[in-house]
């Protein structure tokens, strides 16, 4: 045990002297939460749209002012010119171009149905869909308002729609922050565990210090324990730190039990650190570690369900995803934080993750040989 204590002492000294590692540990939680929550948001705000008004009637002007009043759009009025449509979209001056044809008001009044043309840049399909929905909402509500109150058309001439009242569970305000914050915590812990562990282990190879360690009586398990334990501890601290930022800065919900949350973190860190150890068995330089991990990390994160629903992936991808360590933890953490899940609700994921952790760690340790 004394030997492990000295290795730990040495490791922490080195970590705290490392000019890059320490800032990374404490700056990343801030930067990631700020970037993802405020900048990389999926909510639609201030989309540029252009409106070409051929009608120039009072109704078309009201429609334009309704668009201007919407928080979703930034409207610019363009002199009507059919050829300009593709130009506006191509040069990215507008996300959507709306053409109000001549006779729009007249058509509405005749109750035969009026048409306006909407052209949307759909390179980003998700926001194109949102823009379409918002535009239609504005147009429809104006049409109903106009016909029913302003010109006293009998309301029963407008087809009545079945009213759907939705209630959104676990995130009633459809707050993007609450969806993404638990995901960021998961990424954070993965980076701490896997990247730092692998870099730290390979550094011994790269600097040649492993050669000197190998001629000492340090046993394999002592060395590995001394090398891995610091990152397990750091991972848990960083998780607590990230959680604190989420609570204080973004008022992130915390419905579940804190002990279950940290139990899951502790188990997942074994998996993350085991992967780091495994990578360091194959890589010889820190550069190789970065390339190798970056490849896996990107795939795992994208498939983990952080931005997109895991269930909407094709069957084969869902099957492949069973080897994705981040997938399990992402599910568990979201369930605990947002749904207030108890152990019995997430038992399958917890057991899978625990078994996975043990398998990876055992294999990585077995692969790591002190003498070649």
């Amino acid at each position, binding site marked *: 045990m*004394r030997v492990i204590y000295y290795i730990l002492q*040495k490791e922490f*000294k080195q970590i705290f002297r490392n000019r890059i590692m320490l800032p990374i540990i404490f700056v990343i939680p801030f930067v990631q939460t700020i970037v993802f929550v405020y900048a990389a948001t999926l909510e639609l705000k201030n989309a540029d749209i252009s409106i070409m008004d051929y009608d120039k009637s009072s109704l078309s002007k009201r429609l334009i002012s309704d668009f201007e009043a919407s928080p979703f759009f930034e409207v610019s009025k363009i002199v009507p010119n059919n050829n300009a449509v593709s130009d506006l979209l191509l040069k990215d001056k507008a996300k959507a171009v709306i053409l109000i044809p001549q006779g729009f008001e007249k058509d509405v009044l005749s109750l035969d149905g009026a048409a306006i043309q909407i052209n949307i840049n759909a390179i980003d399909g998700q926001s194109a869909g949102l823009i379409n929905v918002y535009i239609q909402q504005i147009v429809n509500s104006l049409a109903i308002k106009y016909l029913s109150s302003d010109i006293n058309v009998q309301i029963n001439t407008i087809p009545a729609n079945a009213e759907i009242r939705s209630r959104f569970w676990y995130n009633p305000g459809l707050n993007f922050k609450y969806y993404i914050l638990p995901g960021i915590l998961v990424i954070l812990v993965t980076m701490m565990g896997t990247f730092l562990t692998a870099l730290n282990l390979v550094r011994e190879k790269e600097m040649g*210090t492993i050669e*000197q360690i190998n*001629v*000492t*009586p340090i046993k394999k398990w002592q060395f590995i324990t001394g090398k891995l334990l610091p990152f397990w501890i750091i991972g848990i601290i960083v998780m607590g730190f990230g959680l604190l930022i989420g609570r204080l800065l973004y008022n992130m919900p915390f419905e579940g039990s804190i002990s279950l949350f940290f139990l899951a973190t502790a188990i997942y860190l074994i998996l993350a650190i085991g992967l780091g150890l495994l990578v360091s068995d194959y890589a010889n330089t820190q550069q190789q570690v970065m390339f190798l991990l970056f490849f896996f990390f990107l795939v795992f994160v994208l498939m983990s369900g952080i931005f997109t629903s895991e269930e909407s992936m094709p069957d084969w991808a869902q099957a492949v995803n069973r080897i994705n360590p981040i997938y399990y933890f992402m599910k568990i953490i979201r369930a605990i934080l947002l749904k207030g899940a108890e152990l019995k609700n997430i038992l399958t994921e917890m057991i899978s993750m625990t078994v996975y952790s043990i398998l990876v760690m055992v294999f990585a340790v077995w692969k790591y040989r002190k*003498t070649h």
Partner: protein
Amino acid sequence: MNCIELNNINKSFGTIKALADINLNIKKSEFFGLIGPDGAGKTTLIRIITTLLIPDNGKVFINGISAFKNFKQMRKIIGYMPGKFSLYQDLSVEENLQFFATVFGTTIHENYHLIEDIYVRLEPFKNRRAGALSGGMKQKLALCCALIHKPEFLILDEPTTGVDAVSRQEFWEMLNRLKKEGITIVVSTPYMNEANQCDRVALIQKGKILQTDTPENIVASYSKKLYSLKSDKLYESYKLLEKFDKLSAVHLFGQELHLSTNNNQDTTKIVREFLDKHKIEVKISEIKPIIEDCFMDLMLNDE
């Protein structure tokens, strides 16, 4: 008594034969040198002796015990200083020493007498990070760390490579003092002139041992006559003499040529006449061989 014994060691890396049938006996308290050019197999051999590398076949006995079966025991009695600086650059001098002392289950204090001579020179820098030390200081620290557990065997891989001439001399003096403490020392070096610092040396080339003996005996066993040649047109003479069949070998030695011959003829005269034809004036004198001449000769015989 042989305390390091190597029997028929072979080691290949892929298709490259790094060591072929190495047999070596090193005696207790001996100062033993492994001498050979880069790529001769010195480091491979040293890593096998320190049990860091397992040979394809052959056996290593240390103190009569099979080294690989009992490698844990070996760790305690071997002190190893790798060719590349392998201490923690981000730990200070003192922290490095402390760390290696504790992992060997000892303290700096316990074996201080062994490193005192070396450590006093490091002491002013004891709080400096190892990475910020000069080459000579790094080497002294590495030696201290290799000695801190009072090993019976000190094994050093090219300790003097890349070190200035003064530090190099100092280093050999330190090793000689350690030898007086009864430590068996095995050292590898590519510098032939350093052979004279050792009690016995093994000359290694292309994974084979050419000869093992004391430096004096190796020089004495040189059977040919050796001449030194100096000239203004050294390289031209070298090119001409290479094709001159009355000599057995010609080697460039810095600012002179070394010519060797088996014949009892008057070599001075023959060479001078030969080069006269090419209008080259030379100074020739018979000289005594040094280790490097012996090495060149053995190398030629081997080929």
